[in-house]
């Protein structure tokens, strides 16, 4: 300590001798050292992000140039794995499936939740919290459980849905064997699980709209549909857009539903093959459907990059939409 004193006084010499300025003038390193507790407290996140966020990305650049079955030696193949994207029909099929299933599930669920939230938020409506609770319940169940229950409900021979259809004289549908109906079932799972979640978010958004605006519209003679269209929607649009985009981002990583429904395969004609599932198959993950493809960790990495790039593009769009959203600042 005594050794340091001359150094410190020399450093602070040109400064006015007030005590506050004296502290500030000490070498920045000492100022940082003085706050070591703060830095240690916030460091876990940054260390973990570096170790399990950044380093895997760097490693993924290297892996995407390799051909490797995970057991033998890894071989450098340059851009071959990237070129393989364009010659592998399954990639395009999986990309298409991911977006189609998502559009079939996500667009209806957002619209339905908007309508539902409008109904639940009617002034002086009774049982409001009962409705919220009932609709939110599916959200707390695990996707694995949801997939198991839906698989049984949509069974061809003993499934309840086909029994009900039979009651109305409609012939049994091959819900889990038909390439199109498979997507319908997964979309229904998305709708069933997501509806209450979106409903509750929209309700919160609607609650933040100034009630006097509704009052004014009503005095002007606007009906409920007109109010929804001219007041609620424009004010809620940023929330809708933001929520849809974040949901898209997680939806593009869809994996559990098809993996459980079809035991790791892509389903009939690979109609339920999603990008994450394809990546999982090339990784050679456990029970990835009787090894439908030869594991290639290099190619799996490239598929991971494709998902990454799509998500980054969507995130940028998401921020753009959020910037134009005055309401988002609320929380």
């Amino acid at each position: 300590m005594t050794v340091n004193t001359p150094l410190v006084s020399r450093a602070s010499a040109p400064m006015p001798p007030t005590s506050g300025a004296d502290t500030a003038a000490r070498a920045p390193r000492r100022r940082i050292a003085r706050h070591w507790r703060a830095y240690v407290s916030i460091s876990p996140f940054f260390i973990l992000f570096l170790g399990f966020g950044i380093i895997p990305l760097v490693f993924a650049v290297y892996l995407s140039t390799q051909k490797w079955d995970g057991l033998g030696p890894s071989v450098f193949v340059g851009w071959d794995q990237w070129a393989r994207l364009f010659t592998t029909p399954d990639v395009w099929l999986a990309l298409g499936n991911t977006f189609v299933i998502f559009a079939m599930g996500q667009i209806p669920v957002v619209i339905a939740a908007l309508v539902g939230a409008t109904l639940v938020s009617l002034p002086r409506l009774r049982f409001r919290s009962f409705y919220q609770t009932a609709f939110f319940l599916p959200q707390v169940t695990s996707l694995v459980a949801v997939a198991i229950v839906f698989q049984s409900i949509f069974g061809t021979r003993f499934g309840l849905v086909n029994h009900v259809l039979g009651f109305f004289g409609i012939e049994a549908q091959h819900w889990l064997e038909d390439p199109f109906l498979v997507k319908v079932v997964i979309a229904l799972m998305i709708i069933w699980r997501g509806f209450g979640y979106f409903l509750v978010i929209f309700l919160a958004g609607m609650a933040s709209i100034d009630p006097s605006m509704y009052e004014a519209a009503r005095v002007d003679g606007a009906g409920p549909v007109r109010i929804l269209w001219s007041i609620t929607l424009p004010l809620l649009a940023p929330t809708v857009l933001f929520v849809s985009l974040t949901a898209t981002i997680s939806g593009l990583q869809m994996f559990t539903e098809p993996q459980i429904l079809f035991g790791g395969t892509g389903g009939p004609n690979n109609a339920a093959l999603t990008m994450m599932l394809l990546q999982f198959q090339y990784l050679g993950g456990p029970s990835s459907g009787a090894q439908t493809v030869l594991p290639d960790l290099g190619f799996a990495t490239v598929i991971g990059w494709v998902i990454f790039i799509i998500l980054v593009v969507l995130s940028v769009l998401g921020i753009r939409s959020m910037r134009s959203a005055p309401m988002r600042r609320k929380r």
Partner: protein
Amino acid sequence: MSLRMTSRRVRATSPSRIAAHFVLMVGVLLFVFPFYWLIVMATSSTAQIYSVPPRLFLGTSFFENFGKVLEGSTFLTAFANSIWLTIVSVAIHLFLAALAGYVFAKVSFPGRNTLFAILLATMLIPTGVSLVPTFQIYADLGWLNTYLPLIVPGAVSAFGVFWMRQAASSAVSDEVIDAAKIDGAGFMRTFLQVALPSMRPALVAFGIFQVMWTWNDYLWPLLVLGKPSMFTLPIALQQLQGNYGTTDYSVVMAGTLVAILPLIILFFFLRKTILENVSAGALKG
């Protein structure tokens, strides 16, 4: 004039509210039905499940079915694994997120705003979508067939720190912190005894969401947990479905029912907190 308007409005809204109740009730029936059907199947015998027309009423075979769940797999172990893994990882996450959030909100230090901006920016990078490099890193660390990949990398999230910073800046008052310092409380004691108690509501809210995400986590446990004795509930369910799915659905359903029950009970107890905080939780991408 005003009287006529009021009476017309009452007449106009009442039928519309009845219509709203009708639509919502139909919706509730559709949404709750899969739960009811799950209970019906879990309590029916296998023969009852395959009866035509299907039985729509509860059966009496639940304990018989659940007995098969217990003998056929490591279901109970998985249940215990899920419980302790959820408690440990959520506790670590809450502590680290609260500590960092408190520091970002209440302690001034050089570079604070820059570091927080970096932290927020990381939320926009979709890390972890490339399974292979992450999996290889776990393998190189010798972490496969341990719970470390499910605890350490997610031990604290940018989202959690963000939420806890909001909580600390609104719930923890500077005066109380200063008073604690004057009383001679150090950095850690101030955090634990002054800041943490005031952040309790936010900790509960964020904690519930973290519990739901951890409990239902599927992809990574499937990839890294190879031993049946280590399985968590979602993996045990997947195995159960693989073993009984084509022969004995009532057994699978009994296991599924028991697996989702803890979160449903938790949800009913903390319903208000959860519903009030969903829009905050929505920020997580």
